[in-house]
């Protein structure tokens, strides 16, 4: 159990580090020289005593405990309610609700910190600077990666390369962003696994976003036919397959791209499902519809030539 005195001693040692003077005497005024910086305590020994509030008692500890408990409950409530709400409202509002989660959680965390810190620390003027420096040193030594992830998370939140509900690929992992925590984000993969990726990884790795805040994401479906196939007919069938699929977002364009390969003619069908979540069932539906039509019209598929053995 850490007592207040132990905490004070710990902070005192970090504060001493922060106020170390260079070994060689210098005539130039130093920023850490108490005589040259108005408002700073005269010696490093005075800092910890001034940093803490005078009357840290049971009431303060109880208030802090209650605040942390309330914050925890609020975070849980935000997570549960937004998750439930986003899955029960019409699709149009799903992403809007999901995207509010990081901001709501950030607000609760900041509010709790702002409430709890003054209960124990006298955060006025240079004392705040002293505490910041102390924390910076502590984090620099002990929680470098954790701090890096948190900072990357905050920056990512405002840069917005992805949002909650987007379908992204980072490294080898592809899936829907289902959670945006303090340290990392969580992806739900098509296999229904949850992958946790630290924010600093998302910061340094290339990130591919399929829908970027929209409900729809383009789905590419590739088909191969024999070179002598009636290409016009195939293109017509592929357009029809896309327009007839119940998943297709008819408000967005459907495109068929044809490419000639040495062993087949390749047809790329690019279309959007109404909900990016349906991308795999959509692809399946397109393939099934196309195969049925091709079988009916007896369109030739490419054949693998088998070498004859003598």
């Amino acid at each position, binding site marked *: 159990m850490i007592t207040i005195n132990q905490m004070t001693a710990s902070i005192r040692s970090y504060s001493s580090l922060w106020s170390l003077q260079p070994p060689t005497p210098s005539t130039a005024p130093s920023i850490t020289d108490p005589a040259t910086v108005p408002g700073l305590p005269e010696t490093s020994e005075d800092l910890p005593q001034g940093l803490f509030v005078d009357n840290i008692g049971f009431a303060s500890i109880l208030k802090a405990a209650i605040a942390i408990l309330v914050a925890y409950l609020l975070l849980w409530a935000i997570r549960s309610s937004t998750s439930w*709400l986003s899955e*029960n*409202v*019409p*699709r*149009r*509002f799903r992403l809007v609700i999901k995207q509010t989660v990081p901001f709501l959680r950030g607000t609760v965390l900041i509010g709790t910190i702002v409430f709890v810190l003054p209960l124990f620390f006298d955060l006025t003027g240079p004392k705040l600077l002293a505490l910041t420096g102390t924390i910076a040193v502590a984090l620099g030594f002990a929680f470098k990666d954790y701090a890096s992830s948190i900072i990357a998370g905050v920056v990512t939140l405002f840069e917005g390369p992805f949002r909650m509900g987007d379908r992204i690929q980072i490294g080898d992992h592809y899936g829907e962003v289902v959670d945006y925590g303090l340290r990392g984000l969580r992806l739900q993969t098509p296999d229904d696994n949850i992958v946790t990726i630290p924010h600093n990884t998302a910061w340094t790795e290339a990130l591919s976003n399929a829908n970027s805040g929209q*409900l*729809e994401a383009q789905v590419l479906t590739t088909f191969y036919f024999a070179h002598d196939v009636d290409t016009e007919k195939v293109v017509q*069938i592929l357009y*029809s*397959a896309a*327009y*007839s*699929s*119940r998943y297709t*977002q*008819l*408000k967005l364009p459907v495109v068929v791209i044809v490419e000639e390969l040495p062993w087949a003619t390749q047809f790329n069908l690019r279309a959007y499902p*109404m*909900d990016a979540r349906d991308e795999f069932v959509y692809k399946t*539906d397109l393939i*099934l*519809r*196309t195969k*049925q*039509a091709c079988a009916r019209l007896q369109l030739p598929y490419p054949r693998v030539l088998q070498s004859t053995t003598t």
Partner: protein
Amino acid sequence: MAGQVLQSVKSGVQSWFAKAPKLEINEGLEALPSETMAQLSQNVQALSVPMPYQSTIEGALSRAFQEWQEQPEINNSLVILGSPVDAIAPTLETILKSPTSPSQPPEAWRQAKIRFPLEPSRSADPLTILDELRKALDRVNLEDLETLEQEDAQVDPEDGAIAEAPTEPIKSPTIVVIPNLERYFLRCIQGWESVEYVQNLVAHEPSYFWVLGCSHWTWAFLDRVCHISAYLEQVESLPQLTGEELEQWLTPLMASAAATINPSQAPDDSPPASETGSETDSGSTLDFGSDGYWNSLANLSSGISTTAAQLCLQSLRMQAEDLANNQVDDTQEQTRRNAHQTEAVSDPSYRLRLKKPTLPSLIDLDSMDRYLLHALLIHGKMMRSHLALSLGEAEQTIRPRVQVLRREGVIIQQGVWLWVHPVHYPKLRNELGNNNFLIGEA
């Protein structure tokens, strides 16, 4: 305590997003017996075409027909659009087949031959729609040629002027009507080739004037998949009915409802005295003549006639006091309920009241329900096998959802045909629109 609060908040949010308050039966008022409701639903179909619909269609047809006669190569078609639950086909048939009023000068289009060449119901095999359509439309051409030949044969050969006339005879104008375009396509590969055939035929056959009926939803879909609006330019939407127009249109229905409840009273065109009585209504009931009721009905139904008629029927209540008078004791209650209709006949004092109209609540729809209902709204009436083909599912996969939706009254089944209940249409439109579906304007 906290649990109760959470529960109430949860239910409040749920109702806010998905549901409307359920229709509660007021104290002292009772819903009409189901037999009476069924009879009244049939009476709705027998109602005349609402006057605004008639004037809109006739006006648009007169203008378009005149333009066609002046410039046959440019505008030779008119499309009448309505909501997916509007009875567009019967409306068009009634108007186009109705005789000319002797008191008014006949409009030009009434002098034309009017043809309804297509079967009103959907073909059993969707892949044969194109062949059937082609045959039916070719038959129109053939019949016209035969008629012309007969007319030629009847011409007196001694009449020099006619005998020396050019070999190409002048056809009398013909209007070809396809009253329900949604019946001639299915959302599957090659499913709308028939519509492409029609639009090409219209563009290349200026000797006929074409009148087509279609729902906004079908039109929006066909416009995406085969750019139908590029071929059929002239489009007229059925107007939204106002409260006053609904009152005028539904008054005969109210009269027939009163006559059904009180057969001893001679039915007439005006509502019974009890409905228009001067006594002030309290609570959520309204006088028959109240503007508030009809305006509310118009708002809720978005001015769609069929939806308004069904809402109006659902808001009809019998005065419960009168029912109570018939109850002698508790033992007779069941007997009274069983013989509800019989008692209504014997008691002339039943009063019809109109409850404040409300849209019925919609069940929680899952994603399959939404796809299914969207398909029904695009195609109009369709068979379950066609529905399955359109959705790309096996028939047994969709059967359970069809059953649930039918049980909840969201869709109606009559024989093999399925369609969406008009009273649920306003909510379904919002629901599907909010779920990113392509929906029609009305």
